């Protein structure tokens, strides 16, 4: 089991007195502590226009700052929006390669397509086309990274042959992930040999089913990149406190605030009927459990990592038994929890929870045919 931290970078109103500057620098301080405690990765979303919920519109810059201030922790795009109106694929490939170089090969490359009208409408992108453009990006970006020169004529974009530079530091390229929010997207990840970067969570049973489907399908995958990244990550909240009741009470403030805030945005599904978005998407399920009563919840929903170290160990063991390889934690929303408490929570988690979990799986795995052979031999 690996542990990461996950940033939306939520900034409360009023947006004055340098609040965005303060929040960004608090996040960087948290990342430095997470690095010291041995967390595996820091992830940053790409969101646009999501007032208070996420002011993280240039994650490559935030992640570069993270990389420059840390030694071990990997830096993850969670995710790059693979829609031309947001990011041209060449620019996405170039920026990622630079980040990989500057971080000395610590980049995890998450991909996705946005799920809100707030963003897609704001960028004048057509929600009907985002699945197709995402697919093209995931096929072509690894080619840009690994071929000296590359040319392409496709649906979302075209380019005459050019050298896309620089090339990533990791060879053949950084591990690739897919944002998994809607049910069934884990199959998309598996079929392309990419990691499943969960951005929502249901209960243990639902997660176990998702993992089973993912593991089963990835054995026959056609990798989008040059290797298979067989990993399942899920997202969670983290507030760890020596006193369980205090931990749950404070953590419930966090989960409630996050969920309440997210609900104010406009999912594609609500205003733009399309088969491309059959479910509310990334902003829905994570908040469902939490959003009922912000600030007043006193019991922790199943699997939510708030409470004392013993409770967190117990919950994480359950996630582990579901087949989850990595949990990425949201640490704050709307600055609900004071910075010192966030840092104390991270340190307590690092000292008293992380030692219970062995980090024994390599970051990347093998070719699909080797996975199939391993399965036939009864291995995993």
């Amino acid at each position, binding site marked *: 089991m690996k542990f990461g931290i996950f940033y939306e970078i939520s900034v409360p109103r009023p947006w004055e007195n340098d609040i965005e500057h303060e929040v960004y620098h608090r996040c960087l301080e948290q990342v430095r502590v997470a690095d010291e405690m041995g967390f595996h990765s820091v992830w940053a979303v790409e969101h646009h*226009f999501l007032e208070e919920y996420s002011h993280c519109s240039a994650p490559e810059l935030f992640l570069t700052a993270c990389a420059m201030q840390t030694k071990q922790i990997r830096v993850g795009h969670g995710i790059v929006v693979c829609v031309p109106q947001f990011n041209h694929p060449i620019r996405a490939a170039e920026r990622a390669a630079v980040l990989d170089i500057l971080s000395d090969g610590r980049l995890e490359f998450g991909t996705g397509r946005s799920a809100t*009208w707030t963003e897609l409408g704001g960028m004048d992108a057509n929600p009907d086309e985002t699945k197709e453009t995402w697919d093209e990006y995931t096929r072509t970006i690894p080619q840009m990274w690994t071929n000296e020169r590359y040319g392409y004529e496709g649906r979302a974009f075209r380019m005459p042959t050019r050298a896309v530079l620089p090339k990533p530091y990791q060879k053949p390229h950084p591990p690739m992930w897919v944002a998994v929010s809607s049910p069934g997207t884990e199959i998309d990840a598996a079929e392309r040999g990419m990691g499943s970067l969960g951005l929502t969570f249901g209960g243990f049973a639902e997660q176990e089913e998702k993992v089973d489907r993912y593991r089963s399908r990835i054995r026959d995958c056609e990798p989008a990149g040059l290797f298979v990244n067989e990993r399942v990550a899920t997202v969670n909240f983290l507030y760890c406190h020596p006193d369980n009741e205090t931990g749950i009470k404070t953590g419930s403030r966090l989960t409630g605030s996050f969920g309440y*805030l997210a609900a*104010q945005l406009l999912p594609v599904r609500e205003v733009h*009927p*399309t088969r491309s978005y*059959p479910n509310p998407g990334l902003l829905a399920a994570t908040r469902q459990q939490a959003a009922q009563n912000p600030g007043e919840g006193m019991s922790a929903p199943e699997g939510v990592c708030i409470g004392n170290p013993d409770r967190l160990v117990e919950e994480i063991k359950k996630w582990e038994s579901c087949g989850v390889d990595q949990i990425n934690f949201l640490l704050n929303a709307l600055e609900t929890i004071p910075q010192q408490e966030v840092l104390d929570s991270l340190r307590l988690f690092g000292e008293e929870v992380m030692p219970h979990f062995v980090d024994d799986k390599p970051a990347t795995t093998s070719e699909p045919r080797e996975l199939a052979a391993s399965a036939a031999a009864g291995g995993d």
Partner: protein
Amino acid sequence: MPINGNADPGQLTRYAPTMPNLDTEALTLPNVKVLQVIYEIDDSVMAELLPPALHPTIPPTMHVIGLRADEGPLGAFTLASVRVGCRAAVRPRGLPTRAVCTEGAAATALEERWGFPITVGEPVLRERYDRQSIEVNDGNVAVLSAQLVDPVPIGNGDLLYTAGMHVANVERDGETKPWLVQVDPDFEVSRADRGAAQIDAFDSNFWDAPDLRPVYPIIASYTTANITLPKIRYICDPLQPAISGTVAL
């Protein structure tokens, strides 16, 4: 925390009905034609359009809805309404500012049993192969003309209709005052089209929302559906956040 509405509920009630009671039974209207035209609206006034109980969505929206029932327990009728998209705590909702309904049993029932802010008039829902439209005139002046242009079929399950929060005067504990009445109809869709949204005429004063200004089209849909108007299950104090001001009946 999110932006709250700041409108005085008293200013939102010019067409608000008085509901004699809240003991409404559910009622199914068969094969109703439903046109919904959704626009983003001028965000500078989004808080002024809603009471403190509700939050504007980001971005703020309006829904123009046209209904035509050719049969059913309320007889044939046509309804046009304008709603402001919003949230009651975390729930997607729409706040009607005014509705115009053809005269008859439907107008009375929708007003008294479900709290629609009804004015009797002559809305017209037109169905063409290349477009569907809802039109309302006030005298000789067009106060609403909204269309779906270039319809294409979509899946019946692709659509999501949000519930309404209807401002109505309701007596509770001996006091009659404005409440938000939650009306969450069930839509059983048998056919659905989607197309470009287009508003050609909109008189915000007529629709009792002088600052409401559609600025950016999102999409329009046109469906045939069995609509079940619900029992009233919740009401909400318009002056309190919905999370604390909602009362289960």
